[in-house]
């Protein structure tokens, strides 16, 4: 188990290999469909982003509402592929260093990850209750009008992820599947 604390620099990102189990500490930002579209449009229009993504990690999540006394409701990953159209821009222009989600990524995203040194982490899809327990604080930092799709800053402790695609483009989905395939 490897522990990392955000922000992470390029060298740290490049040292992680597909299949590594990692515990993330520090802050991470949430962002899914609507927030990505808005950030992308802002960059296209030559505007600045409301948060500095350099060396930071974005978590693709749309949590359940928090019950009284809870920091956040169930908060597992959503399918990353829907963010693929926007991700290369965030990596190349803003040096986004990591993403957490589930499912595969497009060749364009992987190319940007290799060029800049960005890691794609996987959190367990559907383990929302477990993952929510590792989130200690959740504050809206941008696009509040988007409700559950707003950008939140999360303080996490030992947030468990697996390196899905590393900075060399090694993909755990393909490696793992071929290892156990019997057809």
């Amino acid at each position, binding site marked *: 188990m490897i522990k990392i604390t955000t922000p992470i620099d390029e060298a740290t990102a490049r040292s992680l290999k597909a299949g590594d*189990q990692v515990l993330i500490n520090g802050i991470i930002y949430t962002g899914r469909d609507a927030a990505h579209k808005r950030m992308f449009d802002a960059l296209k229009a030559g505007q600045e982003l409301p948060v500095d993504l350099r060396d930071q990690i974005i978590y693709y999540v749309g949590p359940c509402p928090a*019950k009284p006394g809870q920091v956040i409701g169930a908060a597992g990953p959503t399918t990353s592929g829907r963010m693929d159209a926007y991700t290369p821009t965030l990596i190349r222009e803003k040096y986004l260093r990591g993403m957490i989600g589930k*499912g595969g990524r497009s060749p364009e995203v992987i190319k940007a990850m290799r060029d800049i040194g960005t890691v794609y982490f996987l959190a*367990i*899809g*559907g383990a929302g*209750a477990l993952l929510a327990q590792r989130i200690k604080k959740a504050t809206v930092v941008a696009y509040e009008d988007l409700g559950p799709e707003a950008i939140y800053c999360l303080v996490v402790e030992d947030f468990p992820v697996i390196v899905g695609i590393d900075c060399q483009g090694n993909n*755990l989905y393909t490696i793992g599947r071929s290892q*156990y395939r019997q057809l």
Partner: protein
Amino acid sequence: MKEINVQDVIPVVERLCIESCTLLGEDWWQAIDQAIAREESTIGRDILSQLKENARLAATTSSAICQDTGIAVIFVELGQDVRLTGGNLYDAINEGVRRGYTKGYLRKSVLNDPLIRKNTGDNTPAIIHTHIVNGDFLKITVAPKGAGSENVSGVKMLKPSEGVEGIKRYVLQMVEEAGGNTCPPTLVGVGIGGDLEEVALLAKKALLRPLLQRHPLPHIAQLEEELLTMINKTGIGPQALGGRITALDVHIEVYPTHIACLPVAVNFQCHAVRHAEAVL
């Protein structure tokens, strides 16, 4: 003739929405233990154990197993000796969904229109399937359906000449293409027969049968076993990161069909095998 006031349906649906999103059945706990025992991949076993821990946490804190608490799919069995009073049954069911998703702090994921795409804010309307049966009872099953596993489900109208082999090929192709989007290990629901809409409904109904239970017809039970073995040889594994356990089970439901038809449908249910039922 028995009278049922639909106002009494509201609190029942409310409870079932919360229960189904926070509690998994006995059968699930048995199936996950069996999966952990059989999984060969270390990461795979780790993931399965974490899913178990997740389910335990959700149950003890009465919080959602997964944040995608779905669109509420509701099956109604209405005994024909029942007279409904006190309003419209579907309005009552939707009111129950509204209250359940709000009071249970469940995520509201339903949009008013597929193109305008504005959130209705209370997870209504539900998708309701009604069957008229013998008797004087009203049975309600709530089965919340998340998008990850629904989006990679599908229907195919096979040629009858493609037969069982065609069915196996289609199911396997669907499993391979779905990969990790279904949050494996899954329950694979398969419908065979009927027509276009009936076969899709069969596949969905197949997800309601308890895990590790075979179909009563021997040739269908055998096909379930064969498909399960095949699916678990794909190597996809837990969360599609490689391993033995891609599916916890395969359930098939069948219905008579036309001489020129062989419809087949696959409906995936992610590891969060959620449903709860009650009889009034």
